[in-house]
């Protein structure tokens, strides 16, 4: 019986039963017919036939057992045989299992992140009907084309909601923020929570139920500022309150407002953004009041749910007029917008994107890198497979005598192949199991690399059935890839040839060679990509940013002074600056409303009288006196700001950089010149009092942008730059004392360093460099193992030949050449193939590289020398073994 029908039997025992019944029935029918022919009555004939036959059910049962048990039994036998073989060759087994489990583990770990971040639908009812609204963005020169704007303002949201009618529900979801919370009744300590504002119908739209209390409803959507209620996530309730039901009705203070906890959402709902776990939801109505009337406040995304029967196209068509009407009225209110930009605004359209897997800022940054990393992991898996395949091939050659013996004793080739494939599967199951454990450990570690304090990334990394299935599929596929060729070759053994001589199996080596070339080519691509990512990161760190981030501590400070008390706020800031500057160990200090590389920026138009309008906006940044000294941005000419500049009337004293001077004045020498900036319907005048060196203000990857520095106003929340040799802890300690002494609720909110902030914008590059580098090393190692295995085997096989040559007086160098000439050709061939492939690969990756050419000579040289070195290392042992062959022993031994 074939293996397939056996498998069919064990799965589909109904069919087997049916066949057995037919066969037994056939016997009974024939016997009955014969008895009738002999003159027995029909009823009596049937009775006699049945009597003679015996108990059919019992017989069927016994026959079935043979089919099923023998199938299972031979599988168990095969597995046990495979296990014995693996135990007999521990070095082989360890190498194979280790390299496979690393590769399978890496693939599973990365897939689990890709799945959680990009593929898995949100844990809500009917995720397929969710969509998110976006418009095409107005492209600024230098922007990547195809940008989308997902941020909306409240007046537009209202207009869209009215226009959508019954075709779709539109929910408001603010960008999640890390904020300070204080729980009444608990200790008075402040803690950080992730908070999101949502419209009242948001939970109802997602069909998320409470596990305690109630969630929001349309009743929480009425009056701005009048719905001080909060809903907690199950995760937060569990983590922070131990699932204490008395949380209902307690007060929680988030930022400055106080809320009453009215409910906890059901377990497993983390929000609509994979990568973010929301702790606290508050009604959208509790956002700042001016945001509800002022279309200038864009602060949320819109996620909608299609009504049954309507499509995304229908909904967008209904929303389009409302969107255009909103744009037109915005343009009417802002006459200063130049005609070129007006046209772009009018050309903007609204569209809907599917949002079954939620929306994610993480995805925008890491989607491409994660797919690339998964691709790299797949490359590693292929190398590992080729590696194990060549190890198996070598072993199969060693076992060809055994196979020949079994064939001549009557074992079918199919049986042998099955046996060998079982061995491969056993290997890969073992490797898959270890890889699974490895992935469970590695996935959270990988995520933590992408997480920052201000933007913690967390995924529901449940190692669920999807990931498990992926792991199993990868392991099985691997087993087939690496097991099939060796099994085929072994089973096709010619008993006569194999038994006559143990050597002379050239065919097997040919396939082994092929695997080595494949390994070298793939590993070369991995090394090129890994080195490319590592060098990109190095190049980014080596970029002259125009400021020196080392040794600068950045503190965010807030105070309780209300808006409109700008003068008092400014006085507080000046006092703080003076006090901190006087502290021992503080070299210099400066302030700004927000830090560089913190994610905030302000851009506006620069209009130079008498020169054509430039559409591109420039960066404006408000700074305190001492900023250029503290950041070590060179002041090229003119002067730094002084305290009195803050109180100066128009023209506003302004420092610009050469990029702005060249772009708008066509001249570097612009000291004393003036330009204007539109503010609403008015124009503000600026006079240039100094020129500071160009700097990369928000992105190391982009060149210096035109930039204008303004004197600082009073702020309720600002950033403090402190240049000092002291460690961050003692700086915080000292500054805390000063803020307490100043009063007005001044206190430190965030602590970080400028280096960390800059580094956080390079997470993508760090991820790629880290994983790319590790995988490049791994690929190199695996390829070396493959080379070593092949060479070692070929020396073993040719012991006699080498012995004869040595006896005939061959020199050591000749012998080394004899055993390594194969290797040189293989590595050379692999490198050539790899070089060609890597050029294609690098041009595919070019958008993620920085300062690296597609065929970068330095990279190629490094990669090639890495391969030469590792090949020499791989060849050293087998070559030594060849040299150590004693002719007398080699010739006697046969």
């Amino acid at each position, binding site marked *: 019986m074939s293996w397939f029908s056996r498998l069919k039997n064990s799965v589909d025992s109904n069919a087997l039963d049916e066949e057995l019944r037919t066969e037994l029935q056939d016997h009974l029918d024939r016997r009955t017919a014969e008895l009738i022919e002999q003159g027995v009555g029909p009823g009596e004939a049937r009775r006699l036939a049945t009597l003679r036959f015996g108990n059919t059910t019992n017989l069927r049962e016994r*026959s079935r057992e043979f089919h099923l048990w023998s199938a299972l039994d031979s599988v168990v036998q095969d597995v046990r045989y495979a296990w014995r073989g693996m135990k007999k060759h521990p070095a082989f087994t360890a190498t194979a299992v280790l390299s496979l489990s690393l590769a399978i583990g890496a693939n599973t770990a990365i897939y689990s992140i890709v799945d959680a971040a990009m593929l898995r639908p949100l844990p809500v009812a009917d995720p397929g009907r969710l969509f998110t609204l976006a418009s095409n963005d107005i492209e600024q020169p230098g922007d990547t084309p195809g940008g989308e704007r997902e941020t909306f303002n409240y007046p537009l949201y209202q207009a869209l909601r009215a226009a959508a009618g019954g075709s779709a529900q539109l929910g408001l979801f603010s960008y999640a923020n890390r904020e300070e919370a204080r729980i009444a009744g608990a200790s008075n300590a402040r803690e950080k929570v992730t908070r999101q504002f949502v419209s009242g119908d948001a939970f109802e739209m997602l069909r998320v139920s409470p596990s305690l209390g109630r969630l929001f409803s349309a009743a929480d959507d009425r009056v701005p500022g009048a719905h001080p209620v909060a809903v907690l996530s199950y995760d937060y309730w569990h983590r922070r309150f131990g699932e204490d039901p008395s949380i209902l009705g307690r007060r929680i203070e988030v930022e400055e407002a106080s809320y009453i906890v009215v409910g906890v959402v059901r377990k497993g709902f983390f929000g609509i953004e994979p990568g973010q776990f929301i702790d606290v939801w508050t009604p959208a109505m509790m956002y700042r009041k001016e945001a509800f009337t002022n279309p200038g406040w864009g602060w949320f995304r819109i996620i909608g749910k299609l009504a049954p029967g309507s499509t995304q196209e229908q909904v967008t068509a209904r929303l389009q007029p409302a969107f255009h009407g909103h744009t037109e009225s915005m343009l009417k209110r802002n006459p200063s917008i130049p005609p070129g930009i007006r046209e772009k605004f009018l050309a903007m359209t609204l569209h809907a994107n599917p949002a079954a897997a939620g929306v994610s800022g993480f995805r925008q940054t890491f989607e491409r890198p994660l797919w690339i990393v998964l691709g790299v992991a797949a490359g590693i898996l292929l190398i590992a497979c080729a590696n194990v395949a060549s190890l198996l091939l070598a072993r199969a050659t060693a076992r060809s005598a055994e196979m020949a013996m079994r064939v001549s004793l009557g074992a079918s080739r199919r049986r042998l192949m099955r046996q060998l494939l079982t061995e491969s599967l056993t290997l890969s199951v073992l490797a898959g199991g270890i890889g699974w454990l490895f992935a469970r450990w590695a996935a959270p570690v990988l995520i933590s690399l992408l997480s920052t304090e201000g933007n913690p990334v967390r995924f529901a990394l449940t190692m669920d059935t999807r990931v498990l299935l992926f792991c199993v599929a990868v392991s099985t596929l691997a087993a087939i890839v690496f097991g099939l060729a060796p099994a085929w070759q072994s089973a096709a053994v010619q008993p006569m040839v194999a038994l006559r001589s143990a050597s002379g199996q050239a065919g097997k080596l040919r396939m082994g060679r092929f695997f080595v070339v494949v390994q070298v080519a793939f590993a070369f691509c991995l090394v090129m990509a890994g080195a490319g990512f590592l060098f990109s990161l190095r190049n980014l760190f080596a970029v002259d940013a125009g400021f020196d981030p080392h040794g600068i501590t950045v503190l965010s400070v807030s105070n309780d002074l209300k808006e409109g008390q700008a003068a008092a706020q400014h006085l507080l800031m000046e006092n703080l600056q003076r006090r901190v500057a006087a502290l021992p160990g503080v070299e210099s200090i400066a302030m700004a409303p927000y830090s560089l590389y913190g994610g905030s920026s302000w851009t506006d138009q620069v209009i130079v009288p008498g020169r054509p309008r430039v559409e591109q906006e420039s960066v404006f940044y408000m700074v305190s006196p001492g900023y250029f000294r503290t950041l070590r941005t060179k002041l090229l000419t003119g002067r730094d700001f002084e305290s009195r500049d803050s109180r100066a009337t128009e023209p506003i004293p302004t420092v610009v950089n050469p990029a702005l001077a060249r772009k708008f004045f066509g001249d570097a020498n612009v000291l004393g010149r003036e330009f204007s900036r539109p503010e609403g319907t008015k124009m503000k005048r600026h006079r240039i009092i100094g020129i500071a060196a160009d700097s990369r203000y928000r992105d190391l990857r982009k060149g210096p942008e035109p930039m204008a520095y303004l004197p600082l106003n009073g702020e309720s929340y600002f950033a403090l730059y402190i240049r000092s040799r002291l460690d961050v802890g003692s700086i915080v300690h000292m500054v805390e004392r000063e803020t307490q002494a100043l009063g007005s609720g001044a206190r430190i909110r965030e602590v970080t360093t400028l280096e960390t902030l800059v580094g956080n914008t390079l997470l993508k590059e760090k991820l790629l460099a880290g994983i790319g580098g590790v995988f490049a090393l791994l690929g190199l190692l695996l390829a070396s193992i493959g080379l070593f295995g092949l060479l070692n085997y070929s020396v073993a096989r040719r012991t006699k030949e080498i012995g004869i040559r040595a006896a005939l007086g061959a020199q050591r160098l000749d012998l080394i050449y004899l055993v390594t000439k194969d290797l040189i050709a293989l590595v050379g061939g692999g490198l050539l193939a790899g070089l060609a492939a890597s050029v294609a690969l690098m041009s595919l990756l070019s958008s993620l590289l920085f300062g690296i050419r597609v065929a970068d000579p330095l990279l190629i040289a490094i990669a090639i020398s890495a391969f030469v070195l590792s090949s020499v290392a791989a060849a050293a042992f087998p070559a030594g073994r060849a040299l150590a062959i004693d002719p007398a022993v080699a010739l006697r031994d046969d």
Partner: protein
Amino acid sequence: MASSRSVQTALDLLVLTVLERRGPLHGYGIANAILDLSAEALRVEEGSLYPALHRMEEAGWVSAEWTVTENKRRARIYQVTRKGKAQLSAESQQWDSFSKGVTRVLRLA
């Protein structure tokens, strides 16, 4: 165990012999042939032939396939394989020596 084993062996030997002598047969035919050869010697239920056939099929001594007979019935036809023939000669030799031994013991006793 020993006795059921020897009954099994005897039945196997009979089936293989029948199949070798008479060529491919269905189960009913095999049963009739065995009854013809030694109706009284083997008092077994006819049905017990089938588990034996299936066990031998699993062991690779006989092969089986479904055919449609002249009167349009589906029947399962068994045939002895090369392996079965080898088994037959080995088993019958063993059986020979076993029965010779038993005969000798009986004569001497």
